[in-house]
């Protein structure tokens, strides 16, 4: 399978991948870890807020919305 590493905020709706790295530090990193976002976690982009910004992702069985400013710091190996 072909993979490409991109940041989570550039994952288009309907696409999915596995977390490869967290670039954030401190509070933000802590919050991402609380969601179960560690290396190898499967993430799928589900939908965008109607006015843009917040995007909802499927993360270990739950639907979680994250702002693009925060999603930028999560690297994903996109599934092709």
């Amino acid at each position, binding site marked *: 399978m072909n993979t490409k590493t991109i940041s989570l905020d550039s994952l288009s709706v309907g696409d999915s991948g596995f977390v490869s790295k967290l670039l954030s530090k401190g509070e933000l990193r802590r*919050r991402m870890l609380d*969601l*179960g976002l560690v290396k190898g976690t499967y993430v799928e982009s589900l939908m965008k807020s*109607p*006015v843009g910004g*917040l995007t909802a992702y499927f993360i270990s069985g739950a639907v*979680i*919305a994250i*702002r693009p400013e925060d999603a930028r710091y999560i690297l994903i190996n996109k599934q092709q």
Partner: protein
Amino acid sequence: MKSDTEKLKNSNLTVALAGNPNVGKSTVFNALTGMRQHTGNWAGKTVANASGTFTHKSIDFTLVDIPGTYSLMASSPDEEAAREFICFGQPDCIIVVLDATCLERNLNLALQILEVNKKAVICVNLLDEATKKGIQIDLDELSLYLGVPVVGTAARSGEGLEELKDAVFDVATEKRKVFGTKIKYNSNLEKAVTKLENIIEDSKLFDDKTFSYLSKRFLALRLIDCDKKLDNSIKEYFNFSLIENQTINKAVTKIHEEFETIGLKQDDTRDIIVEGIVAKAREIYAHCTCLCDKCYSRRDRKLDKILTSKLTGIPIMLLLFGIIFYITISGANYPSELLSMAFSKVQEWLYGLFDLLHSPPFLKGLLIDGMFKTLSWVVAVMLPPMAIFFPLFTLLEDFGYLPRVAFNMDRFFAKSGTSGKQSLTMLMGFGCNACGVTGCRIIESPRERIIATVTNNFVPCNGRFPTLIAIITMFFAAGISLPFRSLVSAGLLLTVIVFGVVVTLLVSKLLSATLLKGLPSSFTLELPPYRRPQICKTIVHSLLDRTVFVLLRAMCVAAPAGIVIWLMSNIMINGESLCVIISNFLQPLGSLMGLDGVILLAFILGFPANEIVVPIIIMIYTASGTLVEYDSLSSLYNLFVENGWTWVTALCTMIFSLMHFPCSTTCLTIYKETKSLKWTLLSFILPTILGILLCMAINAVFFWV
């Protein structure tokens, strides 16, 4: 042994109820205790520890519902509160409620709790929903993995609750041995933890039996992770500090040095810990569940596509609220009028009774004109709309729609430099601003929490909502033919609410740029699965709750206030009543704002509760002798018009009602939550000044036009 049982029989055992947000914790709480704490289908509904009791096998249990959290790493105040209770509340048993439809994520918290204290029972709730979605869970296997009893429940229908109580009884009375489970971390961390664990054990700091349940391994992990908050709590509860203990401190420093030499930084430690937990959760999940239908959330995604799409998301949101307002307004008319009529009959009857008893006119005025009239206004005008609005709102909440509102609206809050969770605290403000302020605890960043607290008052609460409806109905929709009247009223009410939201956003932006400077911090919003609301149950419960709430307010606030106001408008100084004197004094400012002195005085006297603003206006107007009876909105309209109201007065009254100082309860709550006089004062002054300025501007514009 016998004395032990004896002791147990007399003692009250404490059971903590923990779990992720939105897993039906409150439902389990209500089902066990028979209480009716309101449950909502969104994160952070339980913001303060609620407790109730139940008896099982002749032992009394106190059940403490702690705020729902995703982890025990304590990054927000409610997470901290949850951890405090699990660590230091000395629970005899912890019920960890897990959502069967989302087990993998929920297991993270369960594993962390077991790491602190293994005296726990796992309650896999929403089993019925999971079955519907084709998710099968092997509860026995799960129990083997976790080393504690596991009970499957469907708390809404009461399924599995007896088994849950049995398991809690067994664990709390130590009839059943619990083993817990151990999360294995990578070898570097594992070695360090074991070493530190032994040092803490040897320090004999925790020899006191009361806290022997606190796992040393957990403490060691927290120390290595540099968790200062936990040490502060330990200081509070035990009067000693782990970090200040020389041996322990030395050991921790040494571990950190060793980590550094192999290239492990502080963030890495946290990663290793979480990776360990997540890997274990994943392993357990893979072994204990079986998905018959891989796309079990298809229906939710379809609904989300409609409710949050670019094209339909916002229109549907406005439409839903508009429909609720429409039903509220058109439905409240009739019962309101009926109640008013009934009250005026009772009033006539009371007059007759007082005359029969030859009571002095003073007493008659005080009790009937003062107390009874205020009380009957509050009940007749406040109760019907609230008894219709809240059940409908609760249905929307139970369905899981509110987090979608936050999802739709987030961009606007991001632009104002605040948290998207502010939408949720605003929605709470509809019920009561004091609740909304307490609800701000779900916002993690202190800066954003204060902004949400200060601006919560721009959402009309229970006490102002019906006032707005009454004014709209009298002044803006009266001329419209009947079938469309409620429709226009609903549209206008929606406009007022949207205006409140816009003001909230603008003021938030202003605060973000000045007093509370900062960039929006990170936040995550969970969109829980949609659930079919239990329509009949919700309507009945919510209706009863609201009725009790409004009646209590009417009795506790409106009745005494009625007496005070009657006295004020009947105590004469130089031939003028106290009310008239003060309202004359306020007249210049009032008329500049498009109001009058009486309205302004009513808002000031309404500080204890917004419900009484309109009754005060009525009482002062009627005391000056123009009109005595008001038994419907049209006679009220005549009274107002006789006292010089125009539609500009009505508009300015609505604006000032939306934008003035919060009621006394809310102010106190703000002080309690922020612990700062400065923010409390700001919450008082800011909306008041904005309201005064806006009213003046409106008045000036219409004066010159």
